């Protein structure tokens, strides 16, 4: 990992005294964190959050099925939004890089507008205007427009970072503008910006959870319904549900990040490895 490299640059290799100091400091902070965690666990247990009744719903097949259905809906919305936002992103990026001033202006305006609009409002607005009967498409459209605008910015900065010689060489070979852009510049840009692109896809995945607002029954919606329909003497199981649903989301996002790392490693393996520019 690159951070390991920087870390060693930021401080001297510790000698025996420094090592002892770090160790003492590490033990202290570990103790502090452990104490905090214990306090959290103890208070939650005291508030009955680990009582059997709180976790009981998760034992039922019907509820497990509910969670799986929710997961499937989440993944459906994510899959559609991911593909469409990448397509829209490349299109808008191409528009922003166009030689024609009006095209550039329009693309830029679209990007700025959708980047600044709260997704909640967009999804709501689509649901209440165009997609009254289809919450899925209201959600996907909102996600696509917002994330497409962000992906456009990412791809554009990636294209700008491709060494100039690449484009010039392609023109010298007699390629046309579109050819240069889509066969030479964009592939290299996508490769160099892959971590950022996938990072944005993680955001897309998380944002599908806004679907609950418009009756799209995704994972978070299922979780909330489970929590609100289980009455126990200690209140409603919001904490257990948050823990379970949170673990699922974190798992999915980490898997996506791992995929990005793997792709990146694969991409780096071949030729044309660009070292990080020395700023």
């Amino acid at each position, binding site marked *: 990992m690159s951070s390991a490299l920087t870390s060693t640059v930021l401080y001297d290799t510790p000698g025996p005294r420094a090592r002892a100091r770090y160790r003492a400091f590490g033990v202290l902070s570990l103790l502090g964190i452990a104490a905090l965690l214990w306090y959290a666990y103890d208070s939650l247990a005291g508030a009955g959050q680990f009582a059997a009744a709180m976790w009981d719903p998760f034992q039922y097949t019907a509820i497990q099925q509910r969670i799986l259905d929710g997961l499937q809906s989440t993944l459906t919305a994510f899959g559609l939004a991911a593909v469409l936002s990448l397509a829209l992103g490349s299109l808008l990026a191409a528009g922003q890089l166009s030689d024609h001033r009006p095209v550039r202006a329009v693309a830029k305006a679209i990007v700025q507008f959708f980047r600044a609009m709260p997704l909640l409002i967009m999804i709501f607005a689509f*649901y209440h205007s165009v997609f*009254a009967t289809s919450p899925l498409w209201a959600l996907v459209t909102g996600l696509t427009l917002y994330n497409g605008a962000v992906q456009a910015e990412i791809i554009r900065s990636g294209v700008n970072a491709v060494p100039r010689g690449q484009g010039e060489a392609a023109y010298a070979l007699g390629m046309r503008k579109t050819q240069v852009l889509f066969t030479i510049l964009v592939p290299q840009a996508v490769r160099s910006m892959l971590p950022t692109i996938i990072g944005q896809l993680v955001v897309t995945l998380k944002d599908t959870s806004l679907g609950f607002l418009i009756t799209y029954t995704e994972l978070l919606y299922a979780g909330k319904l489970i929590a609100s329909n289980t*009455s126990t003497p200690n209140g409603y199981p919001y904490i257990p549900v948050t823990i379970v649903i949170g673990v699922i989301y974190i798992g999915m996002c980490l898997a996506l990040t791992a995929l990005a790392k793997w792709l990146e490693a694969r991409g780096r393996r071949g030729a044309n490895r660009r070292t990080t520019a020395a700023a």
Partner: protein
Amino acid sequence: MRTRRTIAAAMSVLALTAVAACGKSGSPSDNAAGGSAAPKPPTYQVKTDVKLTGSKTFDNAKKRGHLVIGAKSDQPFLGFEDLSAGSGASARSGFDIEIARMVAADLGFGPDQIEWKTIASANRENALSGDGDHQIDFYVGTYTINEKRKAQVSFAGPYLVAGQDLLVAKDNTTITGPESVKDKSVCSVTGSTSIDNITPYGAKITKYETYSQCVDKLMTGEVDAVTTDDAILKGYAAKNPDKLKVVGKPFTKEPYGVGLAKDDSVLRNAINDALKAHEDNGDWKKAYDATLGLSGAPASAVPALERY
């Protein structure tokens, strides 16, 4: 990096096995209130050969072979969905659900010819809008009839008149009605008229998305009271009778109606007829005793229909 991937893989495998391995069916303790002696809701005679000419909604439902009814799913004894009982029709229970079932029966649809859709309050008008192609055919879920809504949707009914009330902790003696909530923190649901009604009394307002979130806050003592229609509050009180009680001084009138697409007067009349028939033959009372009645509230008088 490799270790992280392994961890991720292990985690997902673990999660999957956890989901696949153990599993109970049936429901946990749904008979908490009432026990086995509790009255059962009546079964309704499903009419055959129902003809409604001029109702697009009805035609569409006939064509598709089932009704799509919008409801609430998180209000005990009114519109509730028992998640552990699966997603079938039997998982739904409550007075609103019974009203929907009796109306459906008179329209020629049996209980297994109903597809339920949970629609939150903010989306009700939208779910009923659109030109003959709505998300739902009609909506039964604590839907208060008022003039502003009548501009967007039509109402059959009312089938019940509720009133705004307060839910407090069992041992609370200081809150006795809306006059005593000054500077107390009172919770209700975002964007509900309940908030507008309680604000003039000087309460500090807390707003969440669902009533169960409010009730949770009441149980942890972060708010002093939850306010909304008494019909809703009684259900929550009945779920936790040792800790919660309803003050019992309603200070508004909330006539609940069946929401349907605007200007579908044919369907509106048909639903009104259905309500009238079931009120007259005693089904209404039986349904009430088997649902809201379980929360300890005596059946109020059947409200007169407002045909228009």
